[in-house]
């Protein structure tokens, strides 16, 4: 294995290219028209343009990817996350072309990808699962019947789903009927598969997941848990490791269950077993993500491990470098996902150009991002701009460090979730660790109070007055920066979103 094609974009493509270089491997980037100037393209040893910007014509286009690999002499393919990462047929295509797929075997992807089948298997393997149907519901009325049997509240879930797409909670038959249509429609457009199944909705659970790694030498290990309960519409926003709700004993039990789950499907490479953890400390298998996870850095920071490089070693047929015995986490790490969404306008996706970027640095701070000054933010792909990760000797120190890192971050040109994260880091139920999956629903509104605070008002007003005064005195445009005209439009749109908020808001 000498040359790895990275079949992805954004921060994760850059993450994998860096790991290749650190492992002494060449990296081949692929890119769509929209990504010509993207950081992952600049970082790679070779770069191939796949096609137009829509993912279906670029990052999801198996044939073009395989062609790019052949043309550049790549002998392995890393799928990253999203796009084709959990498509067994892609893993197969890679294998059939004689290349190494850096991930689990297609059979393991398939076994875990079909959610009802996965739950059946896990139940058989002795991994605890949430009660629910083992077959997809034929239609809304079948879902209503199943819900009555499983017991309300229920969760409607796409069979092919993941990442929160095609999921709805329902507390009554009516809600099941409405949610079923929405979930099915989303599932159809996202996965081309609208099968929906029903399971018991666990109240006030935490989302806690276990990182596993398995090599070809029979070693399957876990690297403890990640707490991912700060979510919005099942999309994770903040993750941390360790979880404030998991002690050593629970970590070992959950870790064992996760290892069992992985072994039961013949797993290889890195994967994540997601659990719901209830307030009584009971945990239920949710699903297994058969790929690298967005939030893998928090685990890396507390365990001192490079998960992507372990993936590369495992794919090359080498044993992993980690000991078989359970490792001990050191300190605490938190990740905030910085997305191009405006938290004060219901997290609506925004577009623009990054006209200036100031990255937080210093001790214990990690920034994994797919943007730089000059990057265009469009709507073709997901809204993740970058991940800000802070490590500290303990949770309190990690939170304080994240605060100052968020205070240092400057992204000019597109609204982002940055101010949301800054507020969470000062919010009492988060800082105390007493939160669950309903966190955002309970505190979101108060947290995202859109008005300006008295403390902020005066400096901002004084700055504007001084700038105006200077501009009038000079009678010339005051921006230092030559092409500010272009910048202005994108940025003003953001500043003006308040106007739009008064007429319509998303839900």
């Amino acid at each position, binding site marked *: 294995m000498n040359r790895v094609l990275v079949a992805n974009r954004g921060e994760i493509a850059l993450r994998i290219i860096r790991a290749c270089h650190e492992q002494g491997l060449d990296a081949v980037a692929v890119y769509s028209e929209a990504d010509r100037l993207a950081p992952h393209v600049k970082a790679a040893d070779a770069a191939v343009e796949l096609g137009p910007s829509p993912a279906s014509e670029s990052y999801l286009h198996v044939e073009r990817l395989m062609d790019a690999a052949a043309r550049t002499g790549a002998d392995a393919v890393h799928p990253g996350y999203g796009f084709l990462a959990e498509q067994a047929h892609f893993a197969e295509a890679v294998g059939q072309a004689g290349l190494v797929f850096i991930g689990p075997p297609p059979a393991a992807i398939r076994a875990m990808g079909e959610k009802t089948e996965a739950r059946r298997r896990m139940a058989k393997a002795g991994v605890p699962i949430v009660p629910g149907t083992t077959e997809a519901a034929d239609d809304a009325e079948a879902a209503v019947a199943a819900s009555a049997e499983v017991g309300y509240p229920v969760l409607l879930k796409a069979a092919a789903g993941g990442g929160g797409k095609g999921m709805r909670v329902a507390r009554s038959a009516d809600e099941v009927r409405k949610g079923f249509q929405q979930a099915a*429609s989303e599932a159809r457009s996202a996965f081309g598969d609208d099968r929906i199944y029903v399971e018991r909705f666990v109240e006030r659970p935490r989302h806690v997941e276990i990182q596993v790694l398995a090599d070809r030498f029979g070693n399957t290990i876990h690297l403890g848990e990640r707490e991912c309960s700060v979510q919005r519409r099942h999309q994770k926003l903040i993750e941390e490791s360790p979880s404030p709700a998991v002690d050593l004993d629970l970590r070992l039990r959950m870790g064992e269950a996760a290892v069992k789950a992985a072994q039961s499907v013949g797993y290889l490479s890195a994967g994540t077993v997601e659990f719901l953890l209830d307030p009584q400390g009971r945990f239920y298998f949710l699903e297994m993500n058969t790929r690298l996870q967005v939030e893998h850095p928090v685990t890396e920071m507390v365990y001192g491990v490079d998960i992507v490089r372990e993936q590369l070693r495992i794919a090359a047929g080498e044993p992993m470098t980690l000991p078989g015995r359970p490792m001990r986490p050191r300190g605490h790490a938190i990740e905030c996902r910085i997305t191009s969404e405006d938290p004060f306008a219901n997290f609506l*996706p925004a577009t623009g150009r990054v006209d200036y970027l100031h990255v937080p640095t210093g001790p214990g701070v990690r920034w994994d991002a797919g943007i730089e000054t000059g990057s265009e933010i469009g709507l073709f792909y997901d809204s993740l701009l970058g991940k800000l990760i802070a490590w500290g000797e303990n949770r309190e120190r990690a939170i304080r460090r994240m605060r100052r890192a968020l205070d240092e971050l400057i992204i000019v040109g597109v609204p982002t979730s940055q101010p949301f994260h800054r507020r969470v880091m000062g919010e009492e139920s988060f800082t105390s660790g007493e939160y669950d999956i309903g966190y955002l629903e309970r505190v979101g509104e108060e947290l995202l109070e859109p008005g*300006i605070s008295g403390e902020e008002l005066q*400096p901002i007003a004084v700055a*504007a007055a001084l*700038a105006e*005064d200077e501009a009038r005195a000079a009678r010339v445009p005051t921006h230092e920066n030559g092409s500010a005209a272009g910048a202005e439009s994108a940025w003003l749109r953001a500043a003006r979103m308040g106007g739009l908020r008064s*007429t319509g*808001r998303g839900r």
Partner: protein
Amino acid sequence: MKYTVTVGKQTVEVEVSGDSVRLNGEPIGATLIGIPQTPLKQLVLNGRARTFAMLRSDGGWSVQASGRAWLVTVEDERTRQLRELTGQRGGYAAGGLIRAPMPGLVVRVEVEAGQRLEEGAGVVVLEAMKMENEITTSGPGVVKAIHVEAGQAVEKGAPLIEVVQPEG
């Protein structure tokens, strides 16, 4: 020069003459310096430095602090008096027109012309970044006009639905 500075619903008076600055009549120490090759300016206010990204816009400034951009209007007395006479204001007409808050694809139109709506009723489902977003009303009303249909791609700010006051 004396300026009336407005951020959202809040207003302060800032008077600048040479190096001396007054905030709501009180003297303060304040200097502003642009940082070369960036859209940033450093404000030192009463011995504390802060960094803002600042861009000029019609009638004011866009000031970004801690990741959030504020539209700040700065008016001198003459402009303010003129505006008060003509009754114009820099705000953005709300009216009964519901616009697309982001670019996206119309998945469903959930209302019909003439339909009576409660506050918060869903009117259009818009898909963006693979997520469905339901656009809702901000008050009760009656659907007057529908400007889009399912399958249509819309720009941000495009008119979707027009709602009028319910009669009675």
